[in-house]
């Protein structure tokens, strides 16, 4: 009878042990899975800092995929930045959402002329009307500055 009971109890013990093992394994995977993105994020940020970039370019980490974002000044630096993150051990893929911004370039002569034309077009031309009678002088119109107007009035007084 005892032998029979032992035979029946073995599969139960085995099943219980396997269940406990599976449970421990699931907890480990869940716990470690949570740690992976944080770990990649930290290591990717370190790699960026070491390469001379801002660690804030790491936007997010999804599993072993690192997503980059932010602004970078040229294509060469963009490639260096992506390569620095891709070289981090365990990173499977890098999603590059970086934006290249153009630095202010010195204006060409054509651009300078264009700017002057735009300023000129935005301004109205000066105009004046002077009426002279035997006793009076009337000046009306529009000028750009008071000094020019004063010069004009002084000249008109001499008539």
């Amino acid at each position, binding site marked *: 009878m005892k032998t029979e009971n032992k035979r029946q109890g073995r599969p139960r013990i085995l099943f219980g042990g396997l269940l406990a093992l599976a449970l421990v394994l699931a907890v480990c995977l869940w716990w470690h899975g949570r740690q992976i993105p944080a770990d990649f994020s930290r290591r990717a940020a370190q790699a960026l800092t070491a390469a001379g970039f801002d660690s804030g370019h790491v936007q997010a980490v999804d599993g072993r995929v690192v997503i980059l974002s932010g602004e970078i000044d040229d294509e060469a630096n963009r490639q260096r930045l992506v390569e620095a993150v891709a070289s981090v051990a365990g990173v499977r893929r890098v999603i590059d959402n970086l934006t290249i911004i153009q630095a202010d370039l010195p204006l060409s002569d054509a651009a300078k002329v264009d700017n002057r034309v735009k300023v*000129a077009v*935005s*301004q*109205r*031309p*000066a*105009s*004046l*009307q*002077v*009426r*002279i*009678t*035997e006793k*009076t*002088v*009337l*000046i*009306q*119109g*529009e*000028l*750009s*500055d*008071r000094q*020019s*107007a004063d*010069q*004009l*009035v002084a*000249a*008109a*007084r*001499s*008539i």
Partner: protein
Amino acid sequence: MTDKIIISEDISRPDWLSGFLQLLPELQALAPAEITISDDSLTLSGVVTSDSERTAIENRIAPLLGQLPLINQIVVKTPAAVEAECRFK
């Protein structure tokens, strides 16, 4: 002397201003006269008594304006015509 000049920053600085300042004394002989100037042209009107006087004023003023075209609307009225006009009025 009545000054009704409006000063505004969105007005371009005129290239013709220095020439215009120099021509004002020339207008003494033309009174009554009216001058309108802008970036396009200068229009001059008034009354003189002879063609030669009209031409002389134009010749003195035109060099002061540089490239700015002068529209000469000065009217010639001989003393006899002026007298007749006065009588008609």
